[in-house]
């Protein structure tokens, strides 16, 4: 009876360890434990008043959710691009600048210091979406129709994007006069949680609904795994790859809204700098193959929040801002190596031997 139970628990253990979510979840747990030991006040969430005198929640956890929003949203699109094309889009940081700049242009018009917004925010956001999707379509067309490697294709906008962004506003840095615009990243009066958290949540719900009620997931994976076979089964691989880039473009526009809203203006050379690498990393941390094919959307999103969790933790530990990337790199190496198939196989062999030895003893 007890032996039977042991085998059963062994099976469950194997199932847990074998799951793609195991490493990301373990990483979160370790970060939580480290913070608990070092400084339990990390987890304290307090209700305070913000600059405008409204009650808001504050604390490290809130800041992780808040600041991780853009990355989580980008991770969604990046996962699809990676799965379908077997490559990555390195232009997302630059295209955030482009979409953000377009948004400001609509909001502020010709005058960089307007006294009132020149157009409704929703219009500005829709224009940003259009611009983001156009950038995505440009990348997507190069990759899908012209069969250029994704990294090379997106290198074009990576290089040119920030200049285009500056050109859209004649190199001015327009400031949005309406304080309400800051609500998209900050808090709407009366709601104590930052709006960006809700935006990210809305994006996550949206993609989950799309994956559930369409065949986007199946088509994307099929194209990523075997393009020939997908085509012979009636799928249009060119379109699916193109679509994945356009969806990423939409994610870029949403991320741009939050980024611009944070400061109500833009800095072309700094906004969303290096975020493309974090977005790719989020996909990889989730255990998704960067060579495309099968993917797990939840794992990528979790990956994005791990990166933010790590950043916030290092910030709390007062690690020098110059030294932070190095610490981050160490953790990333550990995570990536531990999720490599070679290492995982080795450990599953080890546990197998361990459990069989235990069985013999019993």
């Amino acid at each position, binding site marked *: 009876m007890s032996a039977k139970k042991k085998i059963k628990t062994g099976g469950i253990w194997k199932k847990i360890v074998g799951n793609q979510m195991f490493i990301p979840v373990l990483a979160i747990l370790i970060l939580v434990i480290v913070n608990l030991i070092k400084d339990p006040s990390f987890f304290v969430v307090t209700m305070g008043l913000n600059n405008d005198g409204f009650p808001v929640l504050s604390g490290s956890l809130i800041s992780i959710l808040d600041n991780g929003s853009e990355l989580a949203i980008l991770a969604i699109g990046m996962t699809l691009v990676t799965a379908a094309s077997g490559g990555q889009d390195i232009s997302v940081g630059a295209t955030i600048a482009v979409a953000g700049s377009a948004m400001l242009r609509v909001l502020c018009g010709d005058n960089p210091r307007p006294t009132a917004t020149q157009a409704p925010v929703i219009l500005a956001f829709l224009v940003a979406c259009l611009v983001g999707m156009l950038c995505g379509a440009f990348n997507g067309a190069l990759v899908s129709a012209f069969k250029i490697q994704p990294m090379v294709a997106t290198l074009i906008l990576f290089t040119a994007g920030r200049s285009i962004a500056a050109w859209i506003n004649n190199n001015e840095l327009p400031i949005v006069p309406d304080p309400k615009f800051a609500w998209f990243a900050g808090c709407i009066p009366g709601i104590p949680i930052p709006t960006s958290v809700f935006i990210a949540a809305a994006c996550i719900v949206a993609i989950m609904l799309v994956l*559930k*009620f*369409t*065949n*986007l997931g*199946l*088509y994307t*994976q*099929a194209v990523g*795994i*075997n393009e*020939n*076979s*997908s*085509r*012979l*089964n*009636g*799928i*249009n691989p060119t379109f699916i790859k193109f679509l994945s880039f356009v969806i990423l473009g939409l994610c870029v526009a949403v991320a741009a809204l939050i980024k611009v809203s944070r400061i109500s203006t833009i800095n072309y050379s700094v906004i969303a700098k290096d975020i493309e690498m974090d977005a790719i990393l989020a996909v990889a941390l989730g255990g998704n193959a960067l060579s495309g*094919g*099968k993917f797990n959307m939840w794992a990528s999103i979790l990956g994005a929040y791990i990166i933010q969790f790590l950043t916030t933790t290092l910030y709390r530990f007062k690690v020098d801002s110059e030294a932070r990337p190095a610490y981050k790199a160490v953790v990333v190496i550990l995570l990536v190596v531990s999720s490599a198939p070679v290492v995982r196989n080795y450990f599953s062999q080890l546990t197998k031997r361990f459990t069989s030895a235990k069985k013999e003893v019993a």
Partner: protein
Amino acid sequence: MNEKRILEMRGIDKTFPGVRALQGVDFFLNEGEIHALMGENGAGKSTLIKVLTGVYTKDGGTISLQGTGEVQIHSPQDAQNLGISTVYQEITLCPNLTVAENMYIGRGKGQITNWKQMNTDAEKLLRSLDIPAKATQQLASCSIAVQQMVAIARAVDMECKVLILDEPTSSLDEQEVEKLFGLMRDLKSRGVGIIFVTHFLDQVYEVCDKITVLRDGQLVGEYEIKDLPRVQLVAKMLGKEMDDLSDIKGEGGGYQGKDSGEDVFEAKDLQSDAGIKPFDFHIKKGEVNGFTGLLGSGRSECVRAIFGADRVLKGSVKMHGKPVKIAKPIDAMKCGIAYLPEDRKVDGIVGDLSVRENIILALQVLTGFFKPFSRAKANAFADEYIKKLNIKTASADTPIKSLSGGNQQKVILARWLLMHPDYLILDEPTRGIDVGTKVDIQKLVLELASEGMSVTFISSETDEMLRTCSRLVVMRDRKVVGELSGDDLTQNKIMSTIAGGESKA
């Protein structure tokens, strides 16, 4: 250990999740012997080979070699160092390197490659084996057959004691097979032990000395070739008497298409960019017909043009008498045409996806992007066909790539049957799969036809076509050169039609 015995495998065990692939299998190989390893798909042949070559680690048993005694083989490199070379069914060379590079890649002892020396060595070896390729030619520019021979040349040059040929002949034509056999006999006389895995019974009886038969991961027995007539070999592989096979033989030539039916599909002057001459073609309801011809004669290209798999250049197509336009596969699928492609690995399976997803794929695409099947429905579809076609898989969740070749083929077949097509095209559905599955597929084709489905069947094995088809379109040099039906459906007639030009001259 016997003195002439160069390889001794005893009590080999190997378990995969959910499947016991090998259970206590013994295998012995003597010096200068060509030893056939036979069995149905999933019998464990490939697994045994992969254990021997270090691709898989065995769970139990011992492997001993002449001279060295018991050995542990952990990687293909180990196997190579011990003098065990393999040529796999699927070509495992690098198509973008040259022939010479492919022959010598990964074998240099030092860091420096003497390119000139390598090229002259390769050229010499190619010439001595009569392989029509240049050392400096890019491998991808050679035909599949030549690529296969280069792989063998690579193995031969590795001073091997044990040479494993895993389905080397499945993509070779007759003359090339003859050449390969010449090469095998030559190696045999030099004392090399050859393990030959194949599904072609004729070839086994032509070239082998001994046969070891596996079934369901277990050893059935080892036999001298002269002691085991074909019928008995097949019976041992199948684990049953010959009823099934003789059944279908009995129908041979007896099956006639329903002449009364209307044309389901009709093509006029059809041409694709794959280099075939424009051709006319039609098929009636409930008819089974086929394209025949030598390898590379354009059989596959014709059906690919029908399905819209290659770019269609010109021609008109009618489905049920109504003109339709088929520019891409989805158009054909909407017309009720299904196509099982020739190259299972490249065009058929979606490797990392589960058996279930692979089964529902075509119907799902046809149903529409916004109408995914519920999990329960997908499961029901998968379970229905896993049972119907007797697909051996641990579960519907298993990735298709971990199934054996024949079972993968059945999954692809299930995918198209699930679509309930009016017109089913099967391009080499029986290539590289075992006798049992072959018979299953042939029977299924006839069954489907009797239910009113039209089927076009392509096979390299003429007798298989004769058994199933009531009309054959004969091709030569990418052109349709004749059509045979009724009493004309004989081996001789097909051969003479294929040869055509020469017999007239």
